[in-house]
């Protein structure tokens, strides 16, 4: 019995690493090509670069105006994701607890619209939000970060509500009732009792939205025109011509731009586990 366990765990380890390597293949291609000259990329796509110089990183970061783009991306992502989490967790919890036809209807509305292809709403969306324009207050949804954040919240709510809703259904109601009896109002109950229990799913929602917002090109390309407002993906436009791509710069730019997401993932991963353990102890 024991022996079988050991050999099967070795087998598992092997399978795990084989799939891990397959996962890493494109990452490897991305990394090595960020060090190659443009012609070397085509003559030797898969080999190691002739030299490891960071010139393409420097060039890419310079062209992208990386610091400014990074700040913009960080600002937009953090605020959007923070608000998505706040709004969608509150809404989902209420929808689960209300449990009537209307709340089901609202849920269906959120979930159903996840299926809308973005390309089919983008022109009407821009036409509509362009009307939200109060020049005297310098308020405009177009070409502003808050306008973009507003849209990200709108598009992000669907999936987030869907995820929270699925998770909250499994959260026992007893704790909430106890809190209510102890005199907490609904607001306090949600934030002090319910929300902490949602940590694993909150982190998941955070990661999934971060992946999307951090990499998104199309929506910001339509709303942000001022160079000073560009996010990281927008600032890579330099490398993508109509017919030609500056691979080394594009890859170098990509490597620097995904590092923050990896850091966030490693950080969030801890919380997914911690959150669960905290929940289990209670």
């Amino acid at each position, binding site marked *: 019995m024991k022996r079988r366990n050991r050999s099967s765990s070795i087998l598992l380890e092997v399978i795990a690493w084989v799939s891990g390597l397959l996962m890493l293949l494109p990452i490897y291609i991305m990394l090595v090509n960020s060090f190659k000259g443009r012609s070397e990329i085509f003559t030797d796509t898969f080999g190691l670069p002739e030299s490891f110089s960071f010139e393409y990183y420097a060039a890419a970061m310079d062209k992208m105006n990386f610091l400014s783009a990074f700040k913009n991306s960080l600002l937009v992502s953090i605020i959007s994701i923070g608000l998505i989490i706040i709004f969608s967790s509150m809404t989902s919890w209420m929808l689960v607890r209300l449990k009537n036809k209307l709340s089901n209807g609202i849920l269906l509305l959120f979930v159903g619209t996840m299926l809308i292809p973005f390309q089919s709403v983008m*022109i009407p969306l821009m036409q509509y939000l362009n009307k939200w*324009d109060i*020049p005297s207050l310098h308020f405009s949804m177009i070409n502003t970060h808050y306008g973009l954040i507003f849209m990200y919240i709108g598009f992000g709510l669907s999936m987030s509500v869907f995820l929270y809703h699925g998770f909250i259904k499994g959260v026992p109601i007893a704790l909430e009732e106890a809190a209510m009896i102890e005199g907490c109002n609904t607001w306090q109950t949600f934030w002090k009792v319910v929300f902490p229990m949602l940590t694993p799913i909150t982190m998941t929602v955070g990661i999934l939205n971060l992946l999307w917002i951090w990499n998104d090109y199309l929506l910001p390309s*339509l709303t942000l025109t001022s160079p000073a407002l560009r996010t990281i993906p927008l600032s890579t436009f330099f490398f*993508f*011509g109509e017919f030609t791509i500056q691979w080394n710069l594009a890859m170098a730019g990509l490597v620097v731009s995904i590092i923050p997401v990896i850091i966030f993932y490693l950080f969030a991963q801890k919380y997914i586990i911690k959150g669960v353990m905290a929940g289990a102890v209670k």
Partner: protein
Amino acid sequence: MKKKVGAAVLSVAMLSTLVACGAKSDDGANKANSADTTSKGTGKKAVITIIQNKVEIQGALEDAAKEFNKTQDKYEVQPLGAAGDNLMTVLQTQFSSAPEKAPTIFTTASGSEFQKYLPYMAPLDDMKAASKIVEGQDTAARSDGKLYGLPVALEGFGLIYNKDMFKEAGVNADDIKTWDDLVAASTKLEQVKGVKKAIAYAQESYFRFMHPFNWPFALMKDTSGTIAKINAGELKLQDIPELKEYVADLDKIKDHTNLSKDTYDEQVAGFAAGQYAMIHQGNWAQGLLNDYDVKFEYGFLPVPFEGNQGIAVGNSNFFRVNKHASEDQQAGAKAFLDWLLTDPAGQHYVTDEFNFIPVYSGFDTSKMDPLSQEVNRYASEGKTVKWVFDQFPAGADQEFANQVEKYYAGKLTGEGLLEALQNVWMTAVKK
């Protein structure tokens, strides 16, 4: 309870429309206002935004804008950015939602794109640069006698060939007078070590179909008349002698090509690496060749279809000025373009930094890059073929290229290719 939540939902919806309605009535005021903030009265500069399709020149364009901004204090030129294939989406969205906020200067192609954006273009006849356009290069930007665009650059395409390799193979480029000469030369060139195929086409729809098929259409007697007949359904592609001959020629050369499998990047890289002796490309490849650090000499060779001795020279890309921008912005846009195209300080950017072949008189062209000089040489000798591919039906380039891909893959014969192209053509015309 349900009712109450329902009422809440409804009130949210109403609130939204209220905001929208409030803003709508503001619209007129808004336009006036934006014009106001940009007028000289307030002492603020008018902001001129510019968006264009060649990301390769973006950095140099930003430098040019900076320099222009220093020379005067009325306008502030601000280049915006869009990745190559994203430009059309951005333009479409911006013009459909708020034309007055769309870029002041933008670029579009001639032909169908010109017609599409014509309602948003200001006439440019009064510009200094307009009077200096090389003869004949402004026709594609005219409508009802008025000029609606300034050509961006003159461009030429043909076969870019590796001169050193030709020498090695003992092929004299000047001796290639007919298609059969080309085939014979290809056979010889393929003997050279390292050469995979003599000729390479790129796979993008422009490089796979539009440019290669410019030859038979441009070299027939009455191109516009023929195309009009095809559009009217009176003539079929498979009945046009020039096309029949061109396809027969393709049959002969097919085995000596890469079957148009490479991307543009790969094609030029293969040429730089000595895997291809010739590539069907234009002088826009210069930047790429520089980046690939090509050591050998290269130049242009005509595609010898029906004994043709010229390369295809034209321009299909134009600067446009947004008619819906404020008057100040439009004036600034014209001032900037005039500076760029007629002032020596601006011209320096066009030839030396953008690596463009100017379409305007009064440029110093002595320092141009090798391929541009080749195009100029052909042009000065009068050995040019017109660009006519913008007369092909709009939006069908990918569909056409798909048929050519089938042909290269052996799924279509030459004859079959023409029939397939005919079908695509007619479907596109009907739409």
